[in-house]
Structure formats: C-alpha cells, structure tokens
C-alpha cells in the first residue's frame, strides 16, 4: 500500500505537470511563436551574411545563390521551418495575440547584429527592445478572453 502510494503520487504529479505544460494549448502556441521568432532572426542573419557574399548582382544570380550559397540556403530553409512552426502555433492560438509577438524577431536580430556584425547599440534601440519585450510579456500573461 505504502509502496504503491509513494510510487504513484509522484507519477500523478508529473502527469499533472506535463499536462499543464503541454496540454495548455494557449501556452504551447505562445512558446511556438517565440521559437518562431528565434528561427526567423537566425534566418535573417544568415541571409544577410549570404547576400553580402554574392559576387554578381541581378535576379538570376540571386536565385542561383539561394541554392549554391550555404548561408543563404540554410537561411531560406529556416524560413520554411518558420512557416511550419507559425502554422502549428496559429492552429491553437489567437491571431490577435500571436501576430504582434513576431515583433520579437526585431529584438533577436538587434542582439545578433550587435554580436555578429558589431552594429552599435543606441538609446532608441534599447528603449524599443524594452517596449517590445514588455508588450510581449503582457500578451503572454493575459488571460484568455
């Protein structure tokens, strides 16, 4: 009796925990869309890196480079993956909540540019980042209407 109780009680607790994390569709779609912004930001950085390394100008060269230039290719693949994540998020979440959260991409891109391209930080950027993060926080916390 006591053995089964000590065995079963943590298990049911775990099940409750997993349920609250995974089955809560609203939270899952929020996490998915945040993941989406991370992937999107990485894709933008790769595409910028790839685009600056293309030797020839022109539309045809750009299309060829999408398949021959590794950073560009990976970047566009990540965009595709991004779309899949977004669709999965939209399935369970509200458009009016998820769409503005995509603005987080700007935040990640700013940080990544700071780190990789050594673009300088300034007053406007830091205020903008703070505002976006606060806004996303409010949308993420807000109770379902």
């Amino acid at each position, binding site marked *: 009796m006591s053995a089964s109780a000590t065995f079963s009680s943590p298990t049911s607790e775990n099940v409750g925990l997993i349920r609250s994390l995974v089955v809560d569709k609203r939270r899952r779609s929020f996490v998915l869309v945040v993941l989406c912004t991370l992937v999107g930001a990485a894709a933008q950085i790769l595409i910028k890196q790839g685009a600056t390394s293309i030797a020839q100008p022109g539309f045809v060269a750009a299309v060829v480079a999408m398949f021959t230039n590794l950073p560009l290719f990976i970047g566009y693949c990540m965009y595709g993956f991004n*779309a899949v994540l*977004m*669709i*999965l998020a*939209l*399935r369970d979440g*509200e*458009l*009016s*909540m998820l*769409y*503005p*959260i995509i*603005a987080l991409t*700007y*935040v990640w891109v*700013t940080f990544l540019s700071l780190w990789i391209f050594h673009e300088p930080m*300034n*007053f*406007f*950027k*830091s*205020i*903008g*980042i*703070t*505002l*976006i*993060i*606060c*806004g*996303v*926080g*409010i*949308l993420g*916390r*807000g*109770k379902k*209407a």
Partner: protein
Amino acid sequence: MLLVIFASFIGSCGMAFLKAGANRLAFNVPALVRNWRLTAGVGLYVISSAFFVMGLKRGELSILYPLVSLGYIWALLWSRIFFGELMTKAKYAGFALIIAGVVVLNLGR
C-alpha cells in the same frame, strides 16, 4: 511609401489565410495539398516581402520601417472580423507597447 503600406496589408492578409488554413489543419498529404488557404497564406507572404523590399529600395528607411507596424492594425481587424477574437485591455496594452517598440527601435537604425 505606398508599396510598404501595401506590403504590410498583403502580409497581414497572408497571416489571416495561414490562420484560416491552420484551423482546418489535418496531418496527411492529400489534405495538406488541398488546403488552399495555407498555400494562399504562404504565397501572399512571399509577395508582401517582395513589395516590401521594392519599397525599401526606393524610400527613406527610417520612415518606411515604422509603417510595417501598420500590419499589426490590419491583423487586429482580421482577427475581429473573421475569427471573432475578443479584444481585452491586456491585448490593447500589449499591442500599443509592441507598436511603440517597433517604431522606436527602427528610429535607432
């Protein structure tokens, strides 16, 4: 400037189609192929980014980037009209902060 406003409009339409398609999502190949709303959504998104790049090439970056925030206003409209999503005070507050953030962030570029 018109190009960028148009791009934000088309982009948000694309997102609305993605949402409509996602509501009808089924995980098998024929159903995914027949889900024209998803295809339309992705297509509109690609077209919108093309217009956006065209607009950026012709205009002043610091004015055009904040116009992208218009997309959030369109998306809010579609959410109410087509999906009947309720607007709460928290949503409006989050919206306002994010739009302000995007505008201010792009002033710093």
